[in-house]
């Protein structure tokens, strides 16, 4: 069902936890749909120096969070905005079709954390101009 990479990131998730006084925090998903992802970013000089996550969700949600944080650490904000769920899927060696939405969630969690950073710092991040965090209405995937 899952690739070995997925299983590895699920069993030994990287970057678990929270960052105190994080520069950006994003939470997406909801309990109704069975997955919630919260991502914390530490940003310095437009570079993502650290990322941590907390996830409630299935195996692929946990693995996606783990992989996503791995992938964006060290990236610039501009790179991180461009970050897409495809990169997560690819890096994980693929996800079952019904689970691809977990990688989308990871992408959104990152965007949401960047948005939070932009709000807090009053910056305008290119590519995030039109972004608004998910409203509360629930659409499970």
């Amino acid at each position, binding site marked *: 069902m*899952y690739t070995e990479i997925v*299983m590895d990131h*699920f*069993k030994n*998730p990287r970057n*678990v*936890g929270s960052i105190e006084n994080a520069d950006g925090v994003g*939470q997406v998903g909801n*309990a*109704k*749909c*069975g*997955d*919630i*992802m*919260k991502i914390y970013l530490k940003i310095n000089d437009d570079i993502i120096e650290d990322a941590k*996550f*907390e*996830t*409630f*969700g*299935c*195996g692929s*949600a*946990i693995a996606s969070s783990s992989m996503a944080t791995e992938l964006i650490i060290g990236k610039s904000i501009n790179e991180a905005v461009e970050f897409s769920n495809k990169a997560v899927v690819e890096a994980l060696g693929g996800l079952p079709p*019904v689970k691809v*939405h977990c990688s989308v969630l990871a992408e959104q969690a990152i965007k949401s954390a960047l948005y939070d950073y932009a709000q807090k710092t009053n910056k305008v991040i290119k590519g995030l101009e039109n972004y608004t965090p998910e409203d509360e209405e629930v659409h*499970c*995937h």
Partner: protein
Amino acid sequence: MNRKIYLDNAATTKVKKEVIEEMKSYFDEMYGNPSSGIYELGRRSKEAVENARKTVADFINADEKELYFTAGGSESDNWAIKGVAFANKDKGNHIITTKIEHHAVLHTCEYLEKFGFETTYLDVDEYGMIDLEQLKSSIKPETILISIMYANNEIGTIQPIEKIGEIAKEHNIIFHTDAVQALGAVRIDVKKQHIDLMSMSAHKLGGPKGIGGMYIRKGIKIDNLIHGGGQERGKRAGTEGVQNIVGFGKAVELASKNFEQYVSKLTETRNKLMEGIKNNIPDVVLNGHPTMRLPNNVNFSYQYVEGESILLLLDMDGIAASSGSACTSGSLDPSHVLLATGLDHGTAHGSIRFTISEETTDEDINFVIETMKNIIEKLRAISPLKKNM
């Protein structure tokens, strides 16, 4: 980790040694078609089918002429509901069932809407029990069928079947019960319990997959689901799966031996697992009824964590379990059964069903409790929900 503990016996069971042994000779020795009674090979197959029929019928206190073989529980459910609906549509177009039925019942009722039938779905309480008063008040002059499952596959709750049967009888309405999970776990008496139609499936009690049964009380008006040859006294066409029928018969025979003893041993083991989880893991919710439940079913919701990830970690430790019903795993929706008991979505997502068998040892139970404790701790540590609470 080479230990293997199979605790998903509600999804399917291992075929018992004696069952396999009994089936053996029906592949390439007694392979005749039971309809070919003119020659010996055919007669032997026919005999084997009729012996199995008698065994199964006896076990539920039915006449063997009231017992029909099908391809499984789903076919039986479809047959019962469509067959009664189509045969009695001049009498009415209303069906009563519950919100916690198996999809084989629910989706069949939904399908019948296209033919002008209407269904009332009864609520259940937090334990998964229906309300007999609601049942009574749902009955209309157009009601032709009440279909209420004997025992639920996810949460194990056993309904008051005899009382439901009495209500159906008083109102002269046909009563079908899906006993797929109950057969071999609960003492069933179709006469005493006023059951008119009952679905069964062999692979839930140590028999082979792809064979089931249906009890049809004499005189019940029902259309065929599968038309064709004259098999099953003209009620269900298709060359009989003789080897599977023989296996079904044997599984029932085994179940009927030491039945009470088997059930009480199972119940004891189940209680140990139930207690163990409750006492060792905080923030859990028992799903289903505390006592009116299947002797093999343990179902808890573990708050702040999600079921699939628990299952994956269990699998790594060699433990097979399920989150809700086998059919819904892979789906993203939380179980309709858990939601019907009033669980919120988040909690429903974190539910795990263990269904034990007579092979389950105390050692297994202790290992499972210990493993679960670690898994839940681990997952809660990375869950954003826990902290918010």
